[in-house]
């Protein structure tokens, strides 16, 4: 990624640590993570359950603050952001995709997306976002009327409709079967390619690694390996 390397990173992380609790009950979820993430990259974070992946993603997305270390977003010190600044950061720069979809059950697909675009600076039309994830014909369905994969794609549409700088996906396929999982990953891949969004995908499934530019493996709160793919595979070619 020569082009990316020359520009400044979106995230610049050094010695990032997060400790939950205190004293004897303290849980060290992250113990010194270093990484730089660049615009347009597709990153896969691999690791066993409990290795600290979600904790790291939450730090990047401004959902949680680190205990120690440097966490810069475009040169700004995220760790020092207050509540209001973090809210604005999340509103304008970050798109989240959660394992549990977290749609509002009382709103239709279109309304779930529109709920977020209502508060953004320069969003795309909810219809456009839904079309991007291949749900143009299901826009007026309620979550209960959609399959898991469709719900997850609504969640992706919701995340990308704000044209975020980064798309953070925490086990987006965790609750899905293979085929559905691939359609969801394709949607993320498409956004990453077409909009140049930095996408970070968490998974404990190593097969997803093929579609990434870079793959970080976490274990016990540390990055234990970084792999750079010379050529990115396509999501649809992934074989479970």
């Amino acid at each position: 990624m020569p082009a990316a390397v020359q520009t400044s990173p979106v995230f610049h992380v050094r010695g990032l640590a997060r400790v939950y609790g205190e004293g004897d009950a303290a849980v060290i979820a992250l113990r010194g993570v270093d990484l730089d993430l660049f615009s347009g990259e597709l990153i896969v974070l691999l690791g066993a359950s409990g290795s600290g992946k979600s904790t790291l993603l939450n730090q990047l997305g401004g959902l949680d603050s680190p205990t120690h270390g440097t966490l810069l977003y475009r040169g700004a010190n995220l760790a020092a952001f207050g509540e209001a600044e973090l809210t604005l950061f999340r509103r304008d720069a970050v798109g989240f995709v959660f394992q549990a979809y977290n749609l509002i059950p009382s709103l239709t697909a279109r309304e779930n997306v529109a709920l977020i675009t209502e508060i953004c600076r320069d969003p795309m039309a909810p219809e456009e976002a839904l079309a991007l994830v291949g749900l143009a014909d299901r826009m007026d369905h309620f979550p209960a009327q959609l399959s898991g994969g469709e719900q997850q794609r609504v969640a992706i549409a919701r995340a990308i409709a704000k044209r975020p700088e980064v798309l953070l996906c925490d086990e987006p396929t965790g609750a899905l079967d293979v085929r559905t999982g691939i359609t969801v990953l394709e949607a993320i891949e498409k956004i990453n390619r077409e909009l140049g969004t930095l996408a970070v995908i968490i998974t404990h499934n190593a097969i997803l690694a093929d579609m990434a530019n870079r793959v970080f493996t976490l274990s016990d709160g540390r990055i234990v390996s970084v792999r750079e793919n010379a050529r990115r595979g396509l999501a649809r070619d992934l074989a479970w």
Partner: protein
Amino acid sequence: MSLLDTKLLRDLRALRSQAIAVALVMACGLAMMIMTRSLILSLATTRDHYYEEHRFADVFARLKRAPNSVREELAAIPGVAHVQTGIAIQVTLDVPGLAEPAVGLINSLPERGEQVLNRLHVRSGRLPAGRTTVGELAVGEAFAEAHGLRPGDSIAAVLNGAKETFRLSGIVLSPEFIFEAPPGAALPDNKTYGVFWMPYRELATAFQLYGAFNNVSLTLAPGASEPAVIAAVNRLLAPYGGRGAYGRIDHASHRRVDDEIRVLVGLSVAFPLVFLSVAAFMVNSVMSRQIALQREQIAMLKACGFANRQVGAHYFKFSLAIVAGGVLAGALGGIVLGHQLVEMYHLFFRFPQLDFQLDARVLVFATAASAGAAFAGVAGAVRRAVRLPPAEAMRPEAPANFQPSLVERLGLARWFSASLRMALRNIQRRPVRSALTCLALALATAILIVPNSFRDGIAYVIDFQWDVVQRQTVTLSLVEPGPARALSDFKHLPGVVWAEPFRFVPIELRAGPITRRLTLQGLPERGTLSRVIDGEPRQLTLPPRGIVMSAKLAEVMQIKPGDEVVARVLEGREREIAVPVVGLAEDFAGTAAYMELDALNRLLLEGDRVSGAHVVLDRGHWGEFLSAVKRTPRIAGCIIKDSLREGFRKTTAESIGLLQKIYLLFATIVAFGIIYNSARISLSERARELATLRVLGFSRGEVGAVLVGELVLLTLAALPLGLVIGSGFAKGILTAVNTETVRLPLVLTPANYAFAVLVVAVASAASALFAARKVAGIDLVGALKAID
């Protein structure tokens, strides 16, 4: 409308039955507040306006007789603005269609010009012509209505021994007689007591009072001191047989309206306070549950960039929507019921016009109060939800920390089924919530006690007053106190089985700075007809010395048995006598004081005299008796106990009965609302767990039993507590509303308790049934995924 508001509306729809339950409870409290406050406003402003328009006086005095020239001296008293003198005389009436004689108070109309004070309002017809026609009377509306009298009808009255027939010129109202009741009586008796007006010359001539007056009203100049004026009036009138001037506070009609307003003030605070607290608690439980269910939605909103303020506002709006529903329903209910109750006041109070006036300020206050209550109810839950870091909220909630219940640890477990054990554990797992639910159920029980205690109190008063205290058939009163041998004349009237004399003397009782005007009753030491009963209740024997007074009077005058009071006699020869208080009596219709008849006569220095007699009749001679009474000019009045009782039933009892029914309806709605809501919430909290049990192979019945068991256990715990709290409420509210002239005893009957228990049991059963049906319908797969 933002999509967050769309979500709000749809969530509200999904939660509508609970939202309606909460809104209804709130509406009941608000309706009562708006109704009572508006009635207060209606009564107070109508009265004040009436007083002003018709120039109701500030100070009143009766006297034996003073020449009209004294009027100028009265007007010259510093601080007196206007004076009106006249004649007021009590006469015996013969009303067409009424078997017994009635009593009329005839007031004079000024000889020249209009009335200066206490001006009449002519409802129909006109005032007596006076200068051109004689034999005309204007009649007060209450009496006219009770007898269906209309202008042009005639009525006979005995004026100074001579029976004359009068033509009714018109029906009138007076600010002096908003409440038309015989002097000293707390209850209206519009059949046998009426107020009339007649030209001065005609009335004065009949009683040889021409050129004199026996009745004064006056108004005070701005800034004048009422006690000083009263003292000056008393000094001035003393030589003319003055009976003591008094202010509005001692004016019977004014006092009664005032007391009614005081009752309403008590009611306007007590009930709504309880209902609104219950509503606040319900808002809290509904919203806490809603927020718990939407934990992940809240986390998502925050992760997507919604500010805490926006998320918090969303849930506040949720509860405000419920409040809005409650306020709307409450305002409508309050206005409708207020209109009905205003109608009821026409039974007691005679105003030219009494219209319902909505107290707009209370509407604003009520809205603010319920919004505040709802706010207080959800603030904690919202704050917790908003504070939760989004990353935290995404993680599933930690599994509840279950423990074997206390019952199990005590080794009693084998006595309980698995379902009941689970119910017990559920209760114990969340002790605070369980306690609050239990408290809410107890409140539901408690509020049911209050209205029925009113009903039972009324029934008790009716029995007490007219079976225990008053055992005569009729009470005959003489035109003037007469010699004791009048009693034997009474005994010889046809049909009379037994008669006991009484002597009524108007007095002013004084203890320290506190004075009260009342009728001192002289009775036989241990009579069998009109009896003096204490709080036990036990008949008191009147001792040969000293005064027995009603406990309430002693309380307001701050005296106890053994103390001495000063009684100023307001009739005949002016006297002041100091008497010891020797006992306290119980009575509910006004405040009374009693003395042994001979002891009273000794104090009055007038020899053996009686004012009348209580009489027991053989009903077979009813007709003969009444015509004999009508033929006896010395007999001024004849009060039939049963018609008094009937009158009380029709007026006071009916009005309190109407209030009681409204309150009972509200209390029942609230009880159902509370219980239904509790069932819904525990169903919602347990749905996942119950679905899991079903998946594990428990039957619908067993699973339903967990839920129902919990509700039943909490209800069982709540019932006794509720009965205790309810008794306390009843006591507190009665204390708040009891006044000197309007009082109810605290009567708590097993039937009252049984009714409360029954309503709560039915509401619980219905809610349990509903919950059980829901449990049966749980979609097993769906419930395990997501539940709301």
